[in-house]
């Protein structure tokens, strides 16, 4: 799988990471290097092997349907660049 500058630009935009044009080619080369390194895994024959989802055999833990959290507007707002009356405030987004 080869990544070109246009793909890097698209992925950077989707991830909202500002990427100057002169970084696109170098990033494409770096990413291609990482991908070809990971592609070595394809050499391993995994036919009939269940995908491993955890390094310990365990089941997904479930919680009770009980209200145990919330009511912490101050904590929630602690890092908000802007807030008012308990709301986060962001630049206008309109459909």
């Amino acid at each position: 799988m080869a990544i070109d500058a246009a793909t890097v630009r698209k992925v950077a935009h989707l991830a909202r990471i500002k990427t100057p044009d002169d970084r696109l080619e170098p990033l494409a080369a770096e990413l291609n290097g990482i991908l070809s390194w990971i592609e070595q895994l394809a050499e391993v024959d995994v036919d009939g092997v269940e995908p491993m989802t955890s390094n310990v055999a365990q089941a997904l833990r479930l919680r009770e349907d009980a209200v145990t959290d919330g009511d912490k507007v101050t904590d929630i707002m602690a890092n908000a660049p802007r807030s008012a009356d308990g709301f986060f405030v962001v630049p206008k987004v309109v459909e």
Partner: protein
Amino acid sequence: MTDTTATSKLIQGRTGNWEIVMGLEIHAQVASKAKLFSGAAVGFGAGPNEQVSLVDAGFPGMLPTLNGHCVEQAVKTGLGLKAQINRRSQFDRKNYFYPDLPTGYQISQLYFPIVGEGVVEVEAEDGSFFNVGIERLHLEQDAGKLIHDLSPTESFVDLNRAGTALMEIVSRPDIRSPEEAVAYVKKIRTILIYLGTCDGDMEKGNLRADVNVSVCREGQYEKFKATGDFSHLGTRCEIKNVNSFRFISQAINYEARRQIEILEDGGAIVQETRLYDPTAGETRSMRSKEEANDYRYFPDPDLLPLELEQAWIDEIKANLPELPDDKRRRLMSQYGLSQYDAVVLISEQAKADYFEAAAAGRDAKLVSNWVTNELSARLAADGKDFSESPLPPSQVAELVALIEEGVISSRIAKEVFDHVWAGEGSPRQVVEARGLVQVNDTGAIEKAVDEIIAANPDKAAAVAEKPQAIGWFVGQVMKATGGKANPASVNDILKARLGL
């Protein structure tokens, strides 16, 4: 059961006939106390951001823990939709940036949903049935709410809804007209309410639909059905978040027309997401979301696959309440009701329960009429549900008993009902207190009949020529007796006296 899909309505265009094809995605809020992955409360009316945990707000290092009750509700719903329950499912991240989504991704189930294929039987307006295939049901998180009208330059974000559990129910493209779409959503809503897995409150947005609409030339849908090849169908547009039955129907009508006009002008439909604007009565393109269509789904590394025990599923199945279709069939066989009456009764669980409580030992058809007509109308006028009826079922049963015993006529029964509704006591008490007992004394009726015939010899003579003119006499006798005469006796006596 008849299948009406073949006889769906055609839309006439300038260049020939068109057909509409639709698939729906219904988002139903799971009835639960806490959110899908956090212990914050679910509900309406709290202050901004009061029902938010650090998990919901996407704080670093916070981990989701799945709410077991929400899993049970999804399984219950799947069983109610006669669908395959997948004993192994998995949660995936759907990645996009929007201010109502603090984590930058929605936890959903793309690759392995908890519920697979099912089928729903839907009643059409004409009393026939059609089947809608269910493709899947999966669990996912709801987003927060944006408020745009508090400032001209800013949007305000309330995350109370963020992380609330939703069931997304995806249908096959089996829906062929706006009426069918509405009937389908109504049926799903009824099933959810019977199961208690969603309150179905559309005004609060607890049930909303995305409608995928496409149009094709007459006959193309049949080819698609025969081959399963989507290329026979047109390009679809998705109308997002329609939250009332009326808007669903209006949005589809508008969208189908729009697409047909474009195609007839030689244009092509662009696959896109659109929004229905009820004020303008039109759908509009949601341009801002166009570029966001690359969601880069991947399995959520914070959550292990969800594995269910067959015994646990079996236990839920054994404890399912009676579902609307089963109830309809039982009401028809147990009480001898018509399909129409049964369908009206099962549309609300509380209405069906009320009917059954009143019908024991009574004329079921008569009870059904009183429940679905008079009482329904009164409750609707007061904005009440059957479960909140000020009149207990025993009172309707008593009213019907009085009719059956011949104590009052159906006409008087309406008057009795008014007084009972006004709180004057039970039907029997009202009948006694107001002297509304039907006159069965044939002597009194004969006297009234004789007087009226004597006073109207010309009309009496006319009856011999035109037997249906007897109706006028029946009316006069009822008037003379204050509506209390037994109509059957009046008829018999009139016929005898007039020589019919």
